[in-house]
């Protein structure tokens, strides 16, 4: 028997203590932003917000395996944690929340949380569910065609898996063994429709076999498990081994959006039980166990993040609105652009 230092779970994944802290910072930022946006909504300053609370673990866990700069991101509206990992700032997020002219996603044209950024290779998303899935396949085809070292990440909810576009996009990706990763954030509801009325199976991942690539189920509250699955899928994609479907079992702590009331379709017990498995808390505990985090660090981090967010809100609020007749612009490419 050889004597070697027992490797930590994160060590086994090649993650350093700094990595863990950076990831924790993202989870915390996402959670604080979420709460702040909801407050803005309650204050009547933001007509519409989309909570991400509960999804941070699988969003940031999977997104962390992507590479800023080279990889391409197709998040869906709930993916605050994904776009933060991609490099979007709290200020940019609130430019969207307040629908300001400088909102990087759409200049205030779309509802908040309809993410997009040329700079960050976040492909502009729409409201219609699952339409981005064939886009991800097409982009991945172009990546392969141009022989680039890039991987396409495509996120969506359990509801999206019922759409024809989802089927057609995954099928095309499998046929051409494309460098794309499909991440299903399965929070067990499409707004109010429970999984049992969306599909007759336990695991969305079980559909991957029918498209000729692997499907993986992970605990969405386990950040490292999500990262591990995504890391492996990312390696497969780069190695030319084709797509992977990763299903993260997660839960939405809050209503679907600020317009929703979830009391009619979820018992409070169910919600409370889920909150007991909070990925932020769980990841924090893991960091503490491995002496990467302690109360002092946490407090300081939290305080500085809150300051940053308050400043972002103020600055975004003060930013200019879009000019009314700019509504006519960009239907087609403009001369000289």
């Amino acid at each position, binding site marked *: 028997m050889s004597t070697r230092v027992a490797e930590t779970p994160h060590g086994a994944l090649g993650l350093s203590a700094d990595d863990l802290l950076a990831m924790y910072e993202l989870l915390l930022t996402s959670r604080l932003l979420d709460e702040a946006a909801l407050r803005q909504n309650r204050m009547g300053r933001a007509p519409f917000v989309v909570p991400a609370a509960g999804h941070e673990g699988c969003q940031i866990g999977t997104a962390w395996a992507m590479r800023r700069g080279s990889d391409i991101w197709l998040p869906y509206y709930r993916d605050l944690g994904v776009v933060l990992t991609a490099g979007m700032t709290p200020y940019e997020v609130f430019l969207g929340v307040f629908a300001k002219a400088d909102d990087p996603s759409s200049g205030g044209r*779309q509802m908040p949380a309809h993410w997009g950024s040329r700079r960050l290779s976040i492909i502009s998303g729409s409201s*219609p569910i699952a339409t981005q899935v064939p886009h991800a396949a097409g982009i991945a085809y172009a990546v392969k065609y141009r022989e680039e070292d890039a991987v396409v990440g495509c996120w969506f909810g359990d509801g999206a898996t019922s759409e*024809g576009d989802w089927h057609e996009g995954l099928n095309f990706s499998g046929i051409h063994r494309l460098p794309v990763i499909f991440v299903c954030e399965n929070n067990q509801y499409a*707004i*109010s429709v429970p999984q049992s*009325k969306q*599909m007759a199976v336990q695991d969305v991942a079980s559909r991957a076999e029918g498209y000729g690539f692997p499907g993986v189920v992970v605990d969405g509250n386990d950040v490292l498990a999500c990262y591990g699955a995504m890391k492996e899928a990312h390696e497969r994609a780069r190695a030319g081994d084709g797509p992977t479907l990763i299903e993260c079992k997660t839960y939405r702590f809050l209503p679907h959006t600020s317009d929703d009331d979830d009391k*009619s*379709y979820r018992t409070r017990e169910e919600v409370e039980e889920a909150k007991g498995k909070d990925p932020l808390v769980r990841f924090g505990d893991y960091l503490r166990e491995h002496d990467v985090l302690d109360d002092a660090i946490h407090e300081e981090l939290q305080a500085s993040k809150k300051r940053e967010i308050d400043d972002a809100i103020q600055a975004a609020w003060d930013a200019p609105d879009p*000019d009314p007749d700019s509504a006519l612009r960009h239907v087609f490419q403009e001369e000289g652009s």
Partner: protein
Amino acid sequence: MTEKNVVTAIRDALHDEMDNDERIVLLGEDVGARGGVFRISAGWMEEFGERRVIDTPLAESGIVGVAIGMALHGLLPIAEIQFADFIHPAFDQVVSEAARLRYRSNGDFGVPMVIRTPCGGGIHGALYHSQSIEAFYAHIPGLKVVMPSTPADAAGLLRSAIKDPDPVLFLEHKKTYRAIKGDVPDGAYLTPIGSADVKREGDDLTCVSYGYSLHTCLDAAARLSEDEGTSVEVVDVRTLAPLDVETIVASVRKTSKAMVVYEDNRTYGAGAEIASTIAEQALFDLDAPIVRIGGPDIPAMPFAGPLEHFFMEPEPDQIYARMRELART
């Protein structure tokens, strides 16, 4: 007579019909436990049972396709598309299947079904919760397209749609849901599909509209008669397909001036058919060119307040202004 808003009128009519006819089933996203995002079917899953109030997967083509199958086998499905903007994935099932089954089977297979969907803007719905879709669907032979603008018409037309032996697209303008109130006759009266309605009588000019725009026109007409005694006749199209040409043309013949107002993108919008029909049938009755006011040709309504307002009203009080102008020429 009871005063109701549009959404209540629709809910009550739908509820009574479901109560009276076991063949009616409701299917769509979130229509069950959630009672629909506009709460129209709140509590109905318990009342009528899960087999009659069906929470479907997130798949519009499937919703319409499944409803077609139900209609082919003795049920009267009412498919709800959560927002009109999301009906597009079902376009093929509507065009190629629902609207063609009777024709292609030489009359053998009918598809008695209703597709209900909330449309229109002005409610901060942004690009994908604000669209007008009537122009796409009114052009489909074999499909009837209805769009009420008052509570009474909504209830009467919905009942007619449910009793219709052919597929009917029932468009509900979201902004009328709560903003528009009116007296609704008691009892299960029917408002005929295919008939327009003169909502305000007048002699100086005819204004043809539908949906929420109709109310902007009625309001402008009222102010114009107060301000300048101009008398505007306002015609509510109510049914886009089949279009009630007689009522529209008769009014224009009477007033000799016509304007057509709609919220949808102007070019190739439903107003084009109405305006050109007037031009073909009443040209020599016209004392002035037909005025056509539609929304700007941009993809639906942006979210930011200033942008959305620009879509609904590019110039301040434009309908009033154009009406006034036309009356004076």
